[in-house]
Every structure is written in structure tokens, then in C-alpha cells.
């Protein structure tokens, strides 16, 4: 199977093409085809994981097709350990996401079509080894979001206040169109920065190539690196929710429909962090080492500030969205440590947070679909009528606050250990504090929504999880626990990649020489 990666990547897109041929009225067929596409990609990812030689590490399963040789653009697909972990995450999230959006009623054909195209883009980013293709897939993954939120999203009102209250005249802050537009524009500005960085790398690569392996082997002049790294950091960082460019995330995730929130917070935000790691840290390591303290300091702000913001929210989706901002801060913190523990933790946190937040959004979607409100103050005692939802929500909360036995703990622990061992040990302090604030807000939300006297009136007959809705809680919930108890499953892949790339870092070589 020399084209396994291409197949995995293309399966959702092919399913989308098949969808085009299916009349929009045969709704079951639409869903089944989408599910098949998603399942094939998941199976492909799992197969990739089994084929990947963890002991060997590095890039494997290479698959090259030249596209524009004159500009040095090739469709070069290969996967490293990080890619394997993130492929698995993507596969799991898209399968559960399709199942969770079984009940989408409005323009369902287009919905699944866009969803599948988007996922193909995500897969592409994780496996492309050509910068140009990487960027292309990145855009494919980011842009459908505009339509997915703008058409299938939900709106609410945000009162005008503050020094910039006058801008409310121009925008309907809180509406889905606003959210979609803000998200797209902010991410596009980020993309512009990435594009500039990309061409800088291309023109300084000597060979005028986008091939990432060649770029890795190139030692860029330090001046170029110092321009490229901040562009990459902020460009990809916007998607990873780096403070202060995170504000698209709460509105976007709150407005997006369930599966889109799952995918976006669960997988797409990881594209940003993956970009910073794969391009920023690996391709321009010298500037990265110089910028790392700033990246880490901002990440620390993300962790604590995101958690505090989440603690102040009254809307359930906003809580989860801000918690994503906080948790992505942990990822960025891990990246900034520039040591094995930190990087392993960062990638592990990507997976852990992806699963956790996917579970969160799936459950929030369930609750919203039934209760028609997201304001937590209006809810109460839901555990009486939907105990399964309550149970899995609690599980997601626990992973969110980093309880041992869940994937969140392993990830956060490694990141904090990496931070403590790194150049700025104090980073661990706000990091851990952020985890505490997380405990406060998730458990408060959990208590308000699910505990208390049995609900009356319109909430008295809310249904618990039904049929396909079981998929997301069951799969994601059990994965959280499995990865919490048995980190080796993923960590071997991640570590193989981290060790390989860390060899490029000058400071690491130094540190290894010092410690026995």
C-alpha cells in the first residue's frame, strides 16, 4: 500500500464527491456515505499507525507526486510520529462528528460535503511534507468553516458595552454571521503571515524548493529566521488561539453547530499548534530558541487568562470554547519548552484536548438540542433525566482539569515537567494554577447543569442519549480513559518524532551534554 496516506487523506473528499451524485432527498444515503468516508479514513489512520515503525522514527510511508516541478512543488506525503498521533485523533473525531450530526436537518447534503472536504484538508496538513501543499491543505481545512458556521450556526445577543461599544452599530456581535466572519478574517490574516514566511523560506532555501526535508537540512541565515519565526508563530498561532488573537474562538465555537465545534476545537486548532511546532520549531530552530521565552510567556497568559475567562462565562458553549483557549495554551507552553517532555506533552495534549473537547461539544450539542438553551443558570438537575450525558460530561470535566487516569493529566503533567525542566521553570506555576481554575469552572458548570433537584416543566422529559448519539460519548470517553492509563499507546509515536526533531536544536544538544 504505497498510497495508504493518500487514500486516508482523500477518502473523505472522495465521499464528498459521491455525495454530489446523491440526491439531497435520500437523507440516510447521505449520512451513510459520509460515515463510510470517515470510517475509511479512520481505518487508514489506524493502519498507518500499525505500519509506522516506532523504533525507527522519522518520516515514513513516503509517497511523492510532482505537481509543479519548476517551482519545486511536489505532492509529497509522509508521516512522522506526531502525524500518526494527530491522524488518529482526526479520524476519531470525524467519525464521531458525523455520527453526532446525524440529526442535522437544514441543507444536510452541503453540510456533510463541507465537513468531509474540511477533514481531507486536515489530514493533508498532517501528512504533507511540502510546504506549499501544507499551506494548501491548511487553507482547505480552514475556509469551509466560514460556510459551516455562517449557514448552520446559531446566534445570540451580546450587549454593547466598553470603550468599543460603538462598534456594535456595525456588527451584530454574537450572531453566527459575525462569528463566521470574524473567524475567517482572523485566520486569513494569519494565513497571510504564513504565506510570507513560506516564501521567505522558499527564496532563502538555496534550492528554491518547498520540500520540507530539504528545508530542514538548510541552515537559514539568522536574520531570515528571526522574520520567519514570529510570522509562523502568530500566523499559525491565530488558529491555535494564541493570546491576544484568540477571540475568534469563543464566538466561533459558540456559534458553530455541534460537529463543527467538535472538529474545529478538536482538530483544527491543533493544525495551528502543529504548524508552529513543525514549521516554526523544526525549520527555523535558532530563531525559535530565541523566541521561545516569549512564546512561553504568552502561552502562560493563555492558560490562566483563558481559564479565568471561562470561569466568568454563563453560556455553556463559551465555557468550553474558552477552556479550549486555555488548553491550547498548555500546548503552546509545551512547544515553547523545547525539550522532549514538553514537546511530547504538547502533542499529547493536542490529542487529549482534541478528544476531550470533542466529547464536550458533542454533549453540549445534545443538551442544547433538547433543552434549547445554553445558559447554565437556566438548567439544573439534568442528571435525573439524562444520566448518561451527565456521566460523560463529568468525565470530560475531569480530563479537562487534568485528573490522573485521564489523558489530560498525562499531557499536562508532561508539559509542566518539561516547563519546569526548561529554561523558565516559573512557567509551570501559572500552568498549574490554570488547571485549578479549570477545576473551579468545569465543576461549577457540571454542578449547576446536572445536579440539584429534578427538573420540572419543559425540562422534565428531556431524553437521554439516543442511537447514533452514543458514538461520540462512548468512543471519546473511553479513549480519554485509555490514553489516561496507558500513555505508551500514543507516546511511542510522539516521542519518536520529538527525539528526531530535537536533534536539530542547538540548545538541546548542549543540555544533553550536560546531563548524564
Amino acid at each position, binding site marked *: 500500500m504505497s498510497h495508504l496516506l493518500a487514500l486516508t487523506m482523500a477518502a473523505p473528499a472522495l465521499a464528498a464527491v459521491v455525495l454530489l451524485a446523491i440526491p439531497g432527498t435520500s437523507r440516510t444515503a447521505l449520512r451513510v456515505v459520509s460515515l463510510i468516508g470517515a470510517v475509511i479514513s479512520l481505518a487508514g489512520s489506524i493502519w498507518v499507525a500499525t505500519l509506522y515503525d516506532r523504533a525507527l522514527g522519522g518520516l515514513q510511508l513516503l509517497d511523492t507526486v510532482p505537481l509543479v516541478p519548476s517551482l519545486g512543488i511536489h505532492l509529497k506525503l509522509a508521516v512522522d510520529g506526531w502525524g500518526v498521533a494527530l491522524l488518529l485523533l482526526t479520524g476519531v473525531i470525524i467519525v464521531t462528528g458525523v455520527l453526532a450530526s446525524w440529526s442535522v436537518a437544514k441543507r444536510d447534503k452541503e453540510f456533510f460535503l463541507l465537513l468531509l472536504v474540511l477533514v481531507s484538508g486536515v489530514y493533508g496538513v498532517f501528512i504533507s511534507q511540502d510546504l506549499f501543499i501544507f499551506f494548501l491543505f491548511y487553507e482547505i481545512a480552514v475556509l469551509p468553516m466560514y460556510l459551516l458556521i455562517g449557514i448552520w450556526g446559531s446566534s445570540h445577543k*451580546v450587549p454593547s458595552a466598553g470603550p468599543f461599544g460603538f462598534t456594535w452599530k456595525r456588527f451584530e456581535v454574537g450572531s453566527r454571521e459575525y462569528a463566521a466572519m470574524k473567524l475567517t478574517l482572523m485566520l486569513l490574516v494569519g494565513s497571510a503571515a504564513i504565506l510570507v514566511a513560506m516564501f521567505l523560506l522558499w527564496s532563502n532555501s538555496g534550492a528554491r524548493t518547498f520540500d520540507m526535508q530539504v528545508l530542514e537540512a538548510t541552515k537559514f541565515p539568522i536574520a531570515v529566521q528571526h522574520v520567519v519565526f514570529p510570522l509562523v508563530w502568530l500566523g499559525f498561532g491565530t488558529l491555535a488561539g494564541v493570546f491576544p488573537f484568540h477571540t475568534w474562538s469563543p464566538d466561533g465555537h459558540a456559534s458553530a453547530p455541534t460537529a463543527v465545534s467538535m472538529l474545529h476545537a478538536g482538530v483544527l486548532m491543533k493544525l495551528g499548534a502543529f504548524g508552529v511546532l513543525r514549521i516554526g520549531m523544526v525549520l527555523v530552530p535558532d530563531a525559535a530558541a530565541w523566541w521561545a521565552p516569549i512564546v512561553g510567556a504568552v502561552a502562560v497568559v493563555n492558560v490562566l487568562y483563558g481559564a479565568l475567562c471561562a470561569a466568568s462565562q454563563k453560556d455553556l458553549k463559551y465555557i468550553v470554547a474558552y477552556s479550549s483557549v486555555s488548553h491550547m495554551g498548555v500546548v503552546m507552553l509545551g512547544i515553547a519548552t523545547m525539550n522532549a517532555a514538553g514537546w511530547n506533552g504538547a502533542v499529547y495534549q493536542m490529542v487529549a484536548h482534541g478528544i476531550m473537547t470533542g466529547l464536550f461539544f458533542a454533549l453540549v450539542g445534545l443538551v442544547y438540542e433538547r433543552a434549547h438553551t445554553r445558559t447554565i443558570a437556566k438548567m439544573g438537575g439534568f442528571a435525573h433525566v439524562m444520566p448518561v450525558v451527565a456521566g460523560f460530561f463529568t468525565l470530560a470535566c*475531569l480530563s479537562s482539569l487534568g485528573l490522573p487516569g485521564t489523558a489530560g493529566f498525562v499531557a499536562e503533567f508532561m508539559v509542566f515537567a518539561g516547563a519546569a525542566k526548561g529554561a523558565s521553570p516559573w512557567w509551570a506555576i501559572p500552568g498549574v494554577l490554570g488547571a485549578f481554575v479549570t477545576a473551579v469552572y468545569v465543576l461549577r458548570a457540571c454542578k449547576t447543569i446536572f445536579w440539584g433537584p429534578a427538573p420540572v416543566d419543559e425540562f422534565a422529559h428531556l431524553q437521554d442519549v439516543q442511537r447514533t448519539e452514543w458514538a461520540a460519548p462512548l468512543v471519546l470517553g473511553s479513549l480519554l480513559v485509555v490514553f489516561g492509563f496507558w500513555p505508551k499507546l500514543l507516546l511511542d509515536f510522539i516521542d519518536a518524532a520529538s527525539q528526531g526533531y530535537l536533534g536539530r536544536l542547538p540548545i538541546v544538544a548542549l543540555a544533553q551534554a550536560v546531563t548524564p
Partner: protein
Amino acid sequence: MSPVTLAIVATVAPAVAALLLLVLSPLRHRGAPAAWVTLLGSLVSLGAAVMLLVARLGGAPDARATIPWIEERGRAMAEIGILIDGVSLPMLIIVCLVALCVQVFSIAYMHDEPPRAFGRYFTLHALFLFSMNVVVVSPNLLQLFAGWELVGLTSYLLIGFYFAKPAAAQAAVKAFWMTKLADMGFLFGLLVLYVSTGGFEWTSAPSATVATWVTGLLFLAVVGKSAQFPLHIWLPDAMEGPTPVSALLHAATMVAAGVFLVVRADPLFALAPGTREVMLWVGSITAVFAALLALVQHDIKKVLAFSTCSQLGYMVAALGAGQAFAGFFHLGTHAFFKALLFLAAGSVIHAVHSNSLDDMGGLRKKLPLTTAAFVIGSLSLAGVPGFAGFFSKDLVLTSLEGKASWIPWAMLLGAAFLTAFYMGRLLIKAFWGELSERSSHAHEGNVAMTGPLVVLAIPSLASGFLGGWLATQSSAQYELHLGLTPVLASVMSLAGLGAAILVFRKGGQAPFTHVLEKLDTFSVVDRTWAGAYRIGLLGVASLAGWIDRYLIDGLINFTGWSALEGGSSARRLQTGLVRDYALLVTVGVLVLVLIGVLR
């Protein structure tokens, strides 16, 4: 079977039970089968623990086995495994035994719960026993931390078992938050230890400064988990949980995990005299403070809860004095008699359907067996000579003798008096005196209820005599010697009881009740924490939320607004008249050409 296998069986058996119940929801929803599965798990654990003990008595050495858990470059960054030695084995037996007793008791006590809730209750119990065993057998601090957090989780879920009650929900969350707040110390301690020694072993010997940091941070977690002043406020609230839960988690085992941690990490604490000094004082203050508050409680469970705080204070003080074994010994005896007391209290509550001491009275005649159990427990707790509590408490007090300051020693002696005094009050109010209206319908529960009382009464009476053996297991010295302290302690406990009889026989009140009640109901500590939470956390959070929405996002909106407004202004240039465009094109050409010319 090898000791390692046995230890794994002892640890994992409840986990298997919990997993079965979690996955096979029909089993859980049926109720009774869940109880049997859980009991089976606990029984297997206990059996394995006993087999380990037998092997050890036969001369088996310590057993230690680890596997890598988090690997980095093929090298273990963190390990998990088991360690069976003179500390963990007795603890394992105590935990399994008490857990089994409590679970049996629960079958009767929770009988009226709907099957689903009943099943959930026992699932959580299985989960708890697994978590607690993880703590007990952990070979390093990281695994101990993992188990530590997991018992915190089960504590949270069990306190919130009656989640329909807002008070229970609040108490559960509060308990979790307070312990989580303290647990940050644990995590920081682990990180400091990891950075300075590269591992999580308590046997690693870092420098004195590092040791002080690590132990100080670990002690923070102990303060939270073992409900020491000023983080004790969650424990009384935790009594919202079912009474057997209070017996198991919030009296016998989970809260003692803090003490267990210090006992385990004794090599580290030995390097940090500063931390020990703090522990000595915190423990002593908690012992007295909680004993005073226990004096004025009207809820039978709250009396016992404050008493637990107070006794944990004893243990922490002993640890602070450097006598880890004294603390551990008291932990063991306390686990038995406090579990006994709580279960007996549960039996009383089951009989009178009230927690309030005012609804009780004269129960001696209606509940003879419960009364006997309660008396045994109380006397043991009070430290009356001959009972288990006497030996361990005496050891604690002796360990404080000859310290730099005599004040902690005196405080704990005073607390011993207070302990006897409030237990006397409890006994008299609940079991002696006039038969109250509610009491008149009381009757003993079935054998599932009384059986555990009997089983637990035996070690409450006699476990004090095992001190010598226990000491050899953890290579400490222990001998009962007749000195000033044992005599004084005996006198204190007897005086306390006597004073209680004098004061409360006629339905009197404790002296200074007024002041103490004020201290309790308007608990300064509680209100300080609530204020810190509201202002410090929620206030800052709202501020952050406002800033994010209206300043940071406002700036983003402002950027968009500027673009739109700028576009609107620029649109005036767009007259829609071709001739204007023609001119503009000309201007553009002119500018470009001029640039080209002038260059």
C-alpha cells in the same frame, strides 16, 4: 502466588469490579448485583492482602516491581508499580478491611435507595477502593499522586451522591476545590523533585533546600487532604454524603492519605526540619481547634467530622515531631475506631431518621448493640487506657515530649481532655437520658448492619497491642513505658469523661458554648475562603471575561469597524462616473510614470 502478583490482584480487583459495573450498565442498574460485584472485589483484595501478610509473617521480604509509564527516549520518565513493605501492607489490610465492613454495612443502610442509585453507589465504592489501593501500594510519589487525585474524585462523587440536594452538591464541589487547591502543592512538589532529582522517588536524597521546598509543598496537599487548619472546612460539609461514605472516606482512609503520604515520604521530610516544625504547629492547632468545635455540634456526624479533623491533627503533629511511626500507628487505630463510630452513628441515624443529637436520647435501651459499639469506639477515641486509641495517642504525645517547645505537647494534652469531653457529651445526649419521641420507634438493623459493627469493634479494642509488631515492620522502636505522658493522658481522658458526665447529665451545655457556636456558624475560616473565592476568583474571572469581550475582542471589532468605516469613506471616491475613473486612471499613470522618471 508471588507477592507482586498478590499485590497487583489486591489493587486491581476492585478496579475490575468497577469496570464491570461501569461497562455492564444493566448490572449496575439492577442494584443488588452491583453490591455483590463490589463486595467480591473488596473480598478478593482483602484476601490477597491477608495472603501477603501471611507470607510476610512467614518471612517474605519487601516486594517492589515497577514498569515504565511515561517513556522518553526509551527511558522511563515516570514509573508505576507496587511496593509492599511494612508500611503499605498494614495500610492495605486496614483499608480493605474497613472498606469491606463499610460496604457490607451499606447494603443495609442504603437499602431504600432506588436500584440505579444503589448500583451507582457501589460502583463508586469499588472505584474508591481501587484508587485508595493505588495510593497505598504506590512505589513512588507520582503514582501516589495519581491515586490521591482519584480518591479525591470518588470522594467528590460520593459526597455528591444525593446530588438532588443542593447542599450535597455544594459540599461535593467544595471538597473537590479545597483539596484540588491543596493538591497544586503536591504537583509543584513533584515538579521540584523531578527537576532536582530526575525522578519521583521518596528515597532520593536532594539537598536540604530542595527537600524543604518539596516537603513544604507536599505538606500543603496534606493540609488539604487531611483537613488541617485552615483547609479543614470541607470536611464537616462532606458529611452531606451517605454516612458509610463518611465512615470510609472521610474518617478512616481517604483523609488519612495525607498522613500516609508523609509516612511514605519520611526520608524526604527527615531532610526538612523546617517543614516538620510547621507540621507540628499546624497539627496541634487543628487538634485543639477542631476539638473545641466538636463540642458544640448538634449533628452527630459533624461531631465525628470535627473529631476526625482533631485526630488527624494529632497524627500530623506526631509526623511533625519526626515520629512517623507514631502518626502511622494512630492512623491505624483511628481508622478502626472512627469507622466504627461512624457506622454506629449510621445505625443510629438509620433508626431515628435524623442526624440531630436533639432528636436522640435514651437510645441505649432501644439499640443495645449499637450503643455498645459506640461506647467502645468513644472510649478508644478518648484514649481510655486499654483501648486501642490509648496506645497510639500515648505514642503521639510521648513523641512530642522533650521538643524545643512544650506548647504543642500541652495543646495535645488539652485536646485529649476535650476529646473525652465531647465524646462524653455525644454519648450522654444520644444514648442516655430520656427517650426522645423519635428514639422510641428505633430498632436495631439487620445483621448486615450489626455485623460490621462487631467486626470493627474488635480492632478498636485490641489493635493497640499490635503496636510492637507494627513498629518492627516499619523498623521503628515502640515500647510502652510508664512515664509522665501516659499517666497524664489517661488522667486527661478520664477527667474529660467525668466532666462530661457532670456537665451534660442534667442536659447542660458546654462552657463557652456561645462563643464556640459563633466561631462555628460564622466560621471565620469558612467565610474567608468564600470571600477569596467570590472576590479573588470569580471577581478576577468576571474582570477577565469583561476585558476579553469588550477590550481585546473590542479591539478586534474596532479593527473591523475601522476597515468598514474606512471603506465607507473611501467609497465616496467611487462616484460611479466613468469620467472620474478615467481621471483617476490618468492620475495613476502620471504617478507611476513620474516615479519611473524621477528614479
